[in-house]
């Protein structure tokens, strides 16, 4: 099957989006309310995936966790793209010292560990979803800048851009009419991959207590809570771990498949 990866990716991402959407209007149980009598129930009915150490329905928490991971992914990736892509395009179009300056700046940011940034932000402003999103966003900016610059350089060398420029189209016109539409697919692919990274980073930050504070359920917090029940109820760690793994896999497959799909030559070859 030629597009197996793409289809799998779409299915997995769709599942995450579906879960998040459903959680907006309905969850089987209250995802925050502690129910002491219902601790550590095994999977079954009515608790599909059982309950955690607080007696909260694991499935409900997973659904809300999907929402949190999408929110963090969308906002941090948007932040990275909104800042990174124009900078990359600027570097690609202007060239010379501007390009050097922007790209070295990107290198500096890229070299700074995202986790350290998150810890610094959490220390300064308190651990919250916003600090986690900013940390992830800033950390993934350089990737967008690099991809945008590489794409811009190629578009700028093409004949239709040379023609446009010689007929007097302004740099803004070139950027808006020619460069951006042509690098958009590339950015889309990068966004999908960045999304996967963002989910993983958000899970790591919540796991460390540097992300979304309790009691809001996130997959990272769920993993952390499950850790103490590893010997008593190992299934608890399985569900959020599986959710993170599948979501990351989904976004990566989607990005990969999307690129193959959008590139006509690759489509023919495969």
């Amino acid at each position: 099957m030629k597009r197996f990866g793409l289809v799998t990716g779409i299915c997995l991402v769709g599942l995450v989006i579906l879960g998040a959407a459903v959680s907006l209007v309905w969850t089987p149980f209250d995802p925050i309310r502690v129910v002491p009598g219902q601790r550590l129930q095994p999977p079954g009915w009515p608790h599909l995936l059982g309950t955690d150490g607080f007696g909260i329905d694991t499935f409900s928490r997973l659904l809300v966790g999907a929402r949190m991971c999408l929110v963090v992914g969308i906002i941090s990736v948007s932040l990275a793209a909104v800042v990174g892509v124009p900078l990359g395009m600027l570097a690609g179009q202007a060239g010379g010292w501007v390009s050097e300056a922007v790209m070295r700046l990107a290198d500096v940011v890229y070299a700074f560990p995202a986790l350290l940034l998150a810890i610094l932000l959490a220390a300064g402003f308190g651990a919250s979803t916003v600090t986690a999103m900013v940390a992830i966003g800033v950390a993934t900016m350089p990737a967008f800048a690099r991809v945008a610059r590489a794409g811009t350089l190629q578009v700028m060398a093409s004949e239709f851009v040379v023609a446009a420029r010689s007929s007097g189209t302004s740099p803004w016109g070139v950027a808006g009419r020619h460069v951006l539409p042509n690098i958009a697919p590339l950015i889309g692919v990068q966004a999908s991959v960045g999304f996967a990274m963002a989910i993983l980073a958000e899970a790591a930050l919540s796991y460390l207590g540097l992300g979304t504070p309790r009691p809001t359920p996130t997959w990272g917090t769920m993993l952390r809570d499950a850790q103490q029940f590893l010997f008593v109820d190992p299934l608890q760690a399985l569900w959020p771990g599986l959710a993170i793994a599948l979501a990351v896999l989904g976004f990566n497959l989607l990005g990969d498949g999307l690129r193959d799909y959008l590139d006509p030559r690759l489509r023919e070859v495969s």
Partner: protein
Amino acid sequence: MNHLNTRSGRRWLQGRWRLGALLGTLLVLTAACSPAAPATSPTTGAHTLEVGATLEPPSMDPFHNAAASIPQVLLYNVYETLVKVDSEGALKPLLAQAWELSEDRTIYTFHLNPAAKFASGQAVDSAAVKASIDRMKADSTITETLRAQLAVIDSVEAPEPAKVVFTLTRPSLMWLYDMSSTLGMVVDPAFTGELGTLTAGSGPYALKTQNKGQSVVLSKNASYWGTPGRFDEVTFRYFSDPNAMNASMLAGDLDVIASLQAPDALPQFADTTRFTTISGTTNGEVVLGLNHDNKALAKKAVRQALTMAIDRKALMDTVWNGQGTLIGSMAVPTDPWYEDLSATNAYDPVKAKELLKDAGYGSGLTLKLRVPVIPYAVKSAQFVASQLRDVGVTAKIEELEFSRWIPEVFTNGDYDLTIVGHVEARDLGKFANPKYYWHYGNAEFAKLYTAADEAGEESAIPLMKQAVRFLADDAAAIWLFALPNLVITSTDVTGVSLNATTLSFDLTTIASR
């Protein structure tokens, strides 16, 4: 239209893809796999003891830092006091062989053990005892707890090398107990170094090294004046993750878990051929502290409502696997004036809502719940936030590293609600100190407490009961439960006391094969 060559991009993306999948898989694996537990017997052949503990001492100076993890290591092991509290809660001689008190109970005369000497070789004489107290009195930067305890000491005299006389400003029942803890630690007066990194005590052990982030190593004081320490070296290893500590114990790397932080894991240590489980009581009241400087929390009705909103029995079952004792006020079962007051302001969310409404918070109330990252505190916080939500109170949880919690919450009082275990013995007097981080400036309680403290042994207990009851009725704080003393040892280790009646993890009674 796409003109881009994506070959190089593809390779790069595949690299990322692999990394992502790998990390995802790793997360699942680390989450789902349990550490292996080889059935090797612990290596206690050498005279060393490995103790697993949770909170790392931020420094080695108990006088300027209130962290209980400091005396856990140092009290009785490195620094000694005139008298010590045994595992039954009774006062026993240590540096003082005997003591007597005057008719009006304000003058205490201690007769020091003439054999006692510091690790440096210098004798522990009355001048050293006096110097230790005077040093604290002259120091404006000592902890708030010590400052309050010192206030009762009027003067210290050293008429003879082996005789030291304390004159108190008023009779005090608690005073001698305070003297059996940090307040009474006698420091070598010849010592001029930095107490944060070095120790100068007279105990059977001395600090060897502190490996920040890992461990504190004590070595035997070879010239100890009393019964020599049974171990050449004792290592306190710190684990922020209870599972890691349990796994370490199961693997045979630890001889003792000083305090089990994951009671749900108790069944792991069910193998009695390898492990001994000790389940006693501690002085640790898990207190949901209320900042009385907060406008809402200054109202008694609001505090009562918050107490009624929390089902403390269910909390203990959920958070600590039902291990522990429900107390309801600032007293634990080993205190002579203890009574179970958990029925005061008992769980009643309906009434809680009414009280809040009458107090003017019917439309809701938002409070900052800032907790240190300690297992019982974090878990209790989530439970508390959930139950407060049911009565319309929003508790915004923030987790802080303990090293940040101390300056921000404990010292600066930047919080509305917080949760921490108060592990000092007989510590209800802290509510009489309006500067203590709860900022509970209730004059009536202070009067009750002082009266009880000043009374003679027989009349003190009913008065103390009254003071304890007053705290519960006034909902000065919310007492979630008293921590159990859950100690796991390898079967080779004996002598660990059943109840933790002091701050010390007392090594002097422990032996191993």
